[in-house]
């Protein structure tokens, strides 16, 4: 019977695209809040106002006219990241890891001269990387030195952690590991590996690469499971507090763990993807429903919410 798979999915509590859009995004995420998450710079400023740590902001470039002073603006920053404020899917981001006489060393080892970097920034300003093609702003922020815990399962780039937060309660998470295919980017549709995380203790589970379940990183060939995510509780706390600063009750929170600074908020997403369920081998719908059924008291403070999560969503040892 063709309807059977539908029932199976429902029984596991998998959240489908239609239900995500109709019952969660349209219902819980007011359109008016979207500009705050679509613009990384605005998100960053908001986070700073709420004392949520983010990578330090170096410079904001708003107009083509400022390009003449670019060299002066860069000062003596040895490493930094150039980002478009409204870029999507990791496009337009350049990671500079150092300087040489010829210019700047990119993450890939490639050297780009000052002139090319200036060109890239002016591209960002013209809106080449913003989805609607609107004029954009570029900003420079500190390069994150990723936590060593994931070194063995990262092919260049910076792994990040995606947490889905529903009504202020972190419900599911995964760590996204860059691969050779994803070109150092941590976006699943670009070919990064998504690895589910046990919400109860912050250890990694299985991975999803493209649409297949994997146990090892495709490039480094090291196992992805059983890695302890450091600062797990403070990561959950940052995610839980994100809702205080923005009126979005179905939210994707992206963080990175800096070796020295600890967890930093990277960006927010008002339309988080559903692939996270495959990485966790668990349905989102079930967790969303259990949040809806939870007693009122647990929503009181971020700390109480996190405590509830640690207790409720601990994944049993998976097969």
């Amino acid at each position, binding site marked *: 019977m063709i309807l059977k798979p*539908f029932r199976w*999915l*429902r029984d596991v509590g998998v959240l489908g695209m239609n*239900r995500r859009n109709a*019952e969660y995004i349209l219902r819980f995420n007011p359109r008016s809040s979207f500009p705050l998450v679509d613009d990384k710079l605005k998100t960053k400023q908001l986070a700073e106002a709420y004392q949520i740590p983010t990578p330090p902001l170096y410079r904001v470039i708003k107009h083509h006219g400022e390009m003449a002073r670019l060299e002066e603006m860069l000062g003596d920053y040895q490493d930094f990241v150039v980002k478009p404020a409204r870029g999507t899917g990791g496009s337009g981001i350049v990671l500079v890891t150092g300087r040489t006489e010829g210019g700047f060393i990119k993450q890939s080892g490639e050297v780009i001269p000052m002139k090319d970097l200036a060109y890239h920034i002016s591209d960002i300003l*013209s809106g080449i990387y913003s989805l609607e093609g609107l004029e954009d702003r570029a900003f420079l922020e500190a390069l994150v030195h990723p936590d060593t815990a994931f070194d063995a399962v990262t092919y260049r780039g910076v792994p990040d952690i995606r947490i889905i937060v529903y009504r202020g309660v972190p419900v599911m998470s995964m760590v996204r590991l860059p691969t050779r295919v994803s070109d150092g980017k941590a976006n699943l*549709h*670009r070919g990064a590996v998504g690895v589910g995380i046990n919400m109860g203790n912050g250890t990694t589970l299985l991975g999803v690469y493209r649409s297949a379940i994997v146990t090892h990183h495709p490039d480094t060939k090291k196992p992805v499971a059983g890695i302890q995510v450091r600062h797990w509780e403070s990561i959950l706390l940052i995610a839980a507090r994100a809702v205080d600063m923005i009126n979005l009750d179905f939210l994707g929170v992206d963080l990175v763990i800096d070796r020295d600074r600890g967890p930093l908020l990277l960006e927010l997403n008002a339309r988080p993807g559903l692939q996270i*369920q*495959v990485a966790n081998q668990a349905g989102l719908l079930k967790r969303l429903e259990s949040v809806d059924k939870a007693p009122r008291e647990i929503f009181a403070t971020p700390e109480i919410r996190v405590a509830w999560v640690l207790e409720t969503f601990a994944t049993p040892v998976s097969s």
Partner: protein
Amino acid sequence: MKRPATLLVVALLLISFAVISYRVIWLKYPILPPAPAKVWQLSMEAHVKGGEKETSAMIGLPSARRGQLVAEERIHSGTLNFSLLREGANRIGVWSGAVGPKDEVIGYSATIQVKPPRPFKNRTPPLEPYPPNVEKKDQAFIRRLVAKWDPLPPADRLRRVAAAMRGFWGIPPPEDQDLQAWSAFHDKHGRMTAFLVLLRAAGLPAQRVEGLPLAESITGSTQTWIEVWTGQEWESVQPERGEIYQPPVPLLPLTTNGLPVIRVINGELSEVRWTLNRGIISQWRMQFDRIMHSDRLLDRWSLFRLPEEFQRTFRILILVPIGALMICLLRNIVGFPTFGVFLPVLMALAFRNTGLAYGLGIFWGVVLIGYVVRRWIDKLRLLLVPRLSVILTLVIVCITLFALLGNKLGLREFMAVGLLPFVILTMTIERFFVITEESGAREALRTAAGSAGVAVITYGILELGPLQLTFFVYPELLLAVAAVQVLLGRYTGYRLLELLRFRKFWRSS
């Protein structure tokens, strides 16, 4: 949340259903598109030879009458003037003017629709006096011949008269001297007049009719027959054999009441040729006619009241929401990606001019060329708007080249590409490139296949004649379509492709 949507759906369906029921029950609309009716293409051509003075050629033209409708008339009059006259129940076309040494060719064509006979409201025609050249004593003995049938109803009287014309006078037979007198009268005045006089004597209104037999034919001459009023309708009688035609009468009257079809003043008509061809009328015209002749509110507000050149647009336009419905289905129920939301609908509209195979081929040809150029342009690092402008220009160049190529090869379809939605093509090239870059060629091709698939399905729907007609007759069906769209908008279940995406989960349950 769910309740208002459900209420809206129910309301839309109810309104739609109510209006359709009203049309079907009170306005007697057909539920299914009706069967095509028979039509005849009539055309006439003749050469006019001029006289000294101004020449006038008067030709009887078919007129709308019981069971017959005339449409799409066209006149060819050369240098002559054309005017239309009414003589009694007849329509006479008059071609007049000075004809030079060379003959003037005149012509007429029309579409004649033969409809099943309907109750015919006609006043009983008056019984005309005897023709003036029939003497009183002749009238007396002829009256004696038919007097015994007076008590019979008109239809039976006609049958007796027709039999008498074949020589069967029935029992008791008339007296010999009357029969001899009749025979002499018949020879003197001719069969036609004799027949008419005998009918007159029997108290039956009758007229001489000239016209054409309704059959595929090319002929230079017309036929004459007699129409007899039998109380309810005119019956047609073949004068030579005295036969009464059974309905449907295979005759096309041109002039009635004894008027000849062709009359010429100061000149003559030669090489007259009447052509009749059978055709099937489109179902559109039939609906059109019934609705044009009605003054009910919904008929007066029917789409059929639009001028015909706009009707054609609306026949298609009214089906576009179904195309949109298809896209809803594919995207939200199946989960297949398409370029843009309505690109496939626009493609389908364009395919109507180019044909499906050519349309698809050209469309993806342009996208592919565009993609190659777009890849190369990427190196130039052009800003967004100028970059899109370059691609737009490229698209226009491609379309122009296709048109020129089509002209050389004699392929109309290639020239019709101008109607492809070029702005949409431009955006498709850009989207195709971005998806290829960001998610790989496979995803881009999948999206392309999805778009093409919906375009083909939508095209198939737009081209469905009966569906076009049904929606055109019942535009309120759009409300039902909207209801389904609302329902789909509230579908929060899994998409079919999500079964595949999350297939890892099936096993665990």
